[in-house]
């Protein structure tokens, strides 16, 4: 680790994202307001107004256009960023496919917010997880520090493999909650994240190109394979970039799944994002009371870290998968993914899915304790009471 004096600021998750955008020397931001994302783009506008950055800011007329303009900017050769949430992300859906298909290393912050109706502006992961198959990588931040670090790493990973990255944070729990964030001096960020070297640009006027033309059945298949392969290759890049980030700045992200007490745990809690902060605190408490529990915080949902998951699954008797999301007609999305990844591997932990905190309902240490008691019973009896439990359901 290089010696440096971090800049400590008390900021919201959204402001952490905005600072990271400034420090990443983003060139174009095209965005549209939506609660609870808006304060990201407000803060960026403030930086521009104060002369702290030269970002070209395009105040578009919809999220669909936000993604389209970001795509145009990125294709031209600029480092481009946008941010959104819920309905806005859903509106972007078509263009998310476009960004990944055109292999543009765009970084976007999605503030997890529940989909309507009924209207809700609060935390829920279904918006981002519903974009699972768009070809974007997804990084889930547990706290404001990870929002800041995540945006910086996302640009480096994205620009290495030419695949866009969604950095996901929780509505209000992170987006509007103030916490200390250690920021990195600009010159050190510049060393970590040099100017973008694009795969192609639209500005070589002596050697013009066309991007995204029709591909017949003879060729389309191979372009899809290339994107699939880029996701596989990204796993190595993610680990390397996470390791480098740790070596430079002291916070290591070389694991795609952050693990706690896995080696001597009977069962672990698995989940995404801010709710894992609550879990970590509960795990400390539970262990002090003699529970043999651990946690597995999935940082990167795409590409899915199946290898790291298998390592965990081979060590524990049970996995309690906490999903602040739901795939209707099936089960929690992370649960579904994790089970699928383990099929045929030989690892056979008991797995139970707890649907928690949808639409921003509080998820507390007390809830984790209740889940721990239930899991303990299941493991001791060897009997799974039910596979999916709507944990907070009012009777």
């Amino acid at each position, binding site marked *: 680790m290089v010696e440096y004096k971090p800049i400590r600021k008390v900021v919201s998750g959204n402001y952490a994202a905005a600072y990271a955008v400034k420090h990443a020397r983003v060139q174009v931001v095209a965005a549209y307001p939506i609660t609870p994302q808006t304060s990201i783009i407000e803060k960026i506008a403030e930086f521009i107004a104060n002369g702290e950055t030269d970002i070209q800011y395009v105040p578009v007329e919809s999220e669909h256009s936000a993604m389209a303009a970001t795509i145009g900017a990125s294709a031209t050769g600029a480092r481009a960023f946008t941010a959104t949430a819920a309905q806005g992300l859903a509106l972007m859906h078509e263009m998310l496919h476009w960004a990944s*298909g*055109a*292999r*543009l290393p765009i970084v976007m912050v999605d503030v997890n917010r529940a989909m309507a109706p009924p209207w809700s502006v609060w935390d829920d992961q279904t918006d981002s997880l519903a974009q699972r198959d768009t070809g974007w990588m997804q990084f889930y931040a547990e706290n404001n520090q990870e929002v800041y670090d995540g945006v910086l790493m996302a640009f480096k990973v994205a620009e290495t493999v*030419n695949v866009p990255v969604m950095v996901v944070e929780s509505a209000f729990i992170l987006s509007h909650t103030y916490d200390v964030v250690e920021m990195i001096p600009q010159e050190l960020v510049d060393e970590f994240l040099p100017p973008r070297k694009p*795969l*192609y640009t639209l500005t070589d006027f002596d*050697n*013009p*190109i*066309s*991007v*995204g*033309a029709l*591909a017949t059945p003879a*060729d389309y298949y*191979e*372009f899809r394979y*290339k*994107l699939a392969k*880029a996701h596989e290759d990204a796993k190595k890049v993610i680990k390397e970039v996470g390791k480098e980030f740790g070596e430079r700045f002291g916070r290591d992200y070389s694991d795609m799944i952050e693990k706690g007490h896995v080696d001597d745990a009977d069962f672990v809690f698995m989940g995404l994002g801010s709710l894992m902060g609550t879990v970590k605190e509960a795990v400390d408490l539970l262990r002090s009371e003699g529970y043999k529990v651990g946690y597995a915080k999935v940082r990167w949902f795409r590409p899915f870290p199946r290898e790291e998951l298998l390592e965990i699954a081979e060590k524990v008797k049970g996995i309690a998968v906490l999903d602040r999301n739901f795939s209707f007609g099936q089960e929690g999305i992370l649960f579904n993914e994790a089970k699928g990844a383990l099929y045929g591997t030989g690892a056979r932990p008991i797995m139970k899915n707890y649907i928690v905190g949808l639409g921003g309902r509080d998820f507390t240490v007390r809830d984790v304790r209740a889940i721990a008691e239930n899991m303990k019973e299941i493991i001791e009896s060897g009997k799974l009471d039910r596979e999916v439990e709507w944990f907070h359901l009012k009777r």
Partner: protein
Amino acid sequence: MAESPFKADIERVEREYSEKMTPGAIARIPGSSVINKTGSWRVFMPEFNRDKCVRCYLCYIYCPEPAIYLDEENYPVFDYNYCKGCGICANECPTNAIVMVREAK
């Protein structure tokens, strides 16, 4: 039949075109459509009478392909490799120097 003014372009495309697939479906050779000889679509073919031509260029200007070029004397040259036989040139020709005839194939 005159030699296509695109001859050099066709050679360039054939030289530079490679099967290597670029991520993002990038087409790196500008003007590479010249490799497609769309003249095979033609049913009627423009027949040109140089004696009637007043070199107004309308046929050249209005050719959507473009498959009509102008030679050093400013007369039109019809590139039958690409001419689809739409007949705009004949319709617009003010002196009937171009007539459309069914092509014997």
